[in-house]
């Protein structure tokens, strides 16, 4: 077998975990996932995320009250009619919660996708091309990375709030801004991966067979980063939802739309915590925590699927195993000359 053939064979054997599809479409990869061993963590996290998604997207279809419907007065206690009572404007808390969760998820999806697309594009370009392009892009990334994102977000949102363009003030505008601000760490991490992929043999094979750079990037580099990009996307999704609620609590949320952060903002503004109106602030708090926990847990279980080294659920006692190994080694050392141990 010639060198090139063997290289191609290894490249194929090493094959990507997720064979095709953009990093933003994890669902396409299902057939490949089926062969992998899902731990209980994965199911727990998928369950939590599924529950929140159902609340946000399916719930409103069955719930009789709308988020824009005034059904009571300031902080009515939960009753049989309104499971979670009413909030400060007299809207049904559960109805507002559903609308809020939906908007927060939409913001997260949009912003997370934008951030990952920018991050992967810059990271791959820098890592693969190298040279001055890499220096320039990574210098820029490092500078942006060291400025706290919340500061840039606050400054941009303030500017957007005072523009007359409704589109930029709402959900989509906020998502755009969050996405544009939060790509840097993805770019940095992707660059590290891409520059290691760039030195692999199958890239040389592709180059020798006359592939152009864009085609190499898309067909030979990106698939290797897909698993990483999916994990980064999950993290970006969580971080975008949290950034949105941070901004909303500062009073810079999407105007004219509900979001989990805005719900908390109003609850705090109307002293829900101090007056003990738990139904007004606990539901958005819990949903936000569920989203964040579910996504981070999903990311860590994906990490274990992709990096077998981290997997340790099955091996119950690593310390015990290590002690056993140490004991065996000691016995070996006592009985035989040291050279015998390989």
């Amino acid at each position, binding site marked *: 077998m010639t060198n090139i053939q063997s290289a191609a064979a290894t490249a194929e054997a090493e094959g990507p975990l997720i064979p095709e599809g953009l990093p933003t479409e994890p669902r396409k990869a299902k057939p490949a996932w089926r062969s992998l061993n899902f731990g209980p963590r994965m199911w727990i996290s998928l369950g939590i995320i599924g529950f929140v998604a159902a609340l946000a997207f399916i719930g409103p279809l069955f719930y009789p009250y709308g988020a824009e419907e005034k059904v009571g007065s300031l902080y009515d206690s939960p009753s049989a009619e309104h499971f979670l009572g009413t909030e400060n404007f007299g809207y049904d808390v559960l109805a507002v919660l559903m609308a809020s969760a939906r908007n927060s998820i939409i913001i997260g999806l949009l912003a997370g996708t934008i951030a990952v697309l920018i991050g992967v594009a810059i990271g791959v370009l820098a890592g693969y091309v190298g040279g001055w392009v890499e220096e320039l892009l990574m210098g820029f990334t490092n500078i942006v990375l060291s400025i706290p994102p919340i500061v840039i977000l606050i400054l941009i949102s*303030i*500017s957007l709030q005072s523009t007359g363009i409704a589109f930029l003030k709402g959900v989509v505008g906020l998502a755009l801004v969050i996405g544009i601000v939060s790509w840097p760490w993805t770019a940095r991490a992707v660059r590290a991966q891409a520059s290691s992929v760039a030195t692999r043999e199958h890239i040389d094979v592709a180059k020798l067979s006359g592939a152009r750079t864009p085609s190499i990037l898309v067909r030979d580099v990106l698939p290797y980063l897909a698993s990483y990009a999916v994990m980064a996307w999950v993290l970006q999704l969580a971080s975008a939802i949290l950034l949105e609620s941070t901004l909303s609590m500062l009073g810079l949320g999407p105007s004219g739309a509900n979001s989990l952060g805005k719900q908390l903002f109003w609850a705090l503004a109307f002293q829900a*915590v*101090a007056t003990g109106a738990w139904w007004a602030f606990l539901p958005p*708090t819990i949903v936000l*925590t569920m989203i964040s*926990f579910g996504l981070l847990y999903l990311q860590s279980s994906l990490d274990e699927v992709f990096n077998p080294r981290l997997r340790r659920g099955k091996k*119950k006692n*690593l310390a015990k195993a290590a002690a056993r*190994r140490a004991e065996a080694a000691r016995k070996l050392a006592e009985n035989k000359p040291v050279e015998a141990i390989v």
Partner: protein
Amino acid sequence: MGLRRYLANKTVWYLGALVVAVVLNFLLPRLIPGNPVDVLVSKMGQGGLSSEAQQRTYEAFMREFGLDKPMWDQFLLYMSGVFQGSFGASFSFYPTPVSSLIAQSVPYTLALQLPAIVLGWIIGNVLGAIAAYKGGGWDKSVFTTALLFNSTPYYCLSIILLYVFGVVLGIFPVGGAYSLGLSPEWSWDFFSDALTYWWLPFLSLVLINIGGQAVGMRSMAIYELGSDYVNYSRSLGIGDRKMTGYIFRNAMLPQITGLALSIGTMVGGALITELVFSYPGMGSLLFGAISSNDYPVIQAVTLIITVAVLVANYLVEILYGFIDPRIRASKSGEK
């Protein structure tokens, strides 16, 4: 000298970041069509001010904040103000200089965040290393708890703590930094009183930091546990305690960079924590300024946060240079 090059390299990068941050801080609020004064004066107009008075206020504000000058002059004015530590006067508390508003709130923010960051980092790393080393049920429970805290947004934990310990159980006071009737002063009475108000916001910050650091440390330590030097040392029969020391020191290095990266996020989260507890720090100041369109205060707060985060990151990276033997030993700078 590797170390010297490393230090010079980092210094240059951070100076670059500082320049970008300062320029952004100047430019972003000025991207608005019109200017902050328009917004402010139009709001006053809704309050029933006559148009003549409105015009006069408008001009006075424009002159006061130098907004009638060309952009370049404004920038020079802004820069010279920044270097003198003066940020002009606040819009909403008009004659009060921004710097004195900030001087009032900085101590509270520092008192909350510094101990939370430092203690959270130390405790979290120790817990994470133990979890990784012991494995099994201990690992599972520590990891899951840490992950739960790590993924709880700062303000969510704050709200829950405030509700449970402040409102329901009544152990801690609800909101504020000291009792009514007291005023900030260097006295024992004030400190012991302020301490009861400090616990809850501090706890909500430190618990989350512990969680985050423990999660990071655990995975670093697991990675180290599988490495060759660990297996080799084990086969030589080196004791557990010594091994943990080795693993800890090696897994620590990425955690130090992790600290630098996370300070920015922490500060953002801590701002909202102050809001929840109506703790009179920078977060509450910023919130008040945003709701009253107090641009000089907003700009000053964002600038100070940025500079503080940059300086903290810089110090951590410098420290890293001294700690990591590879940088001291290498002939050329890292990266």
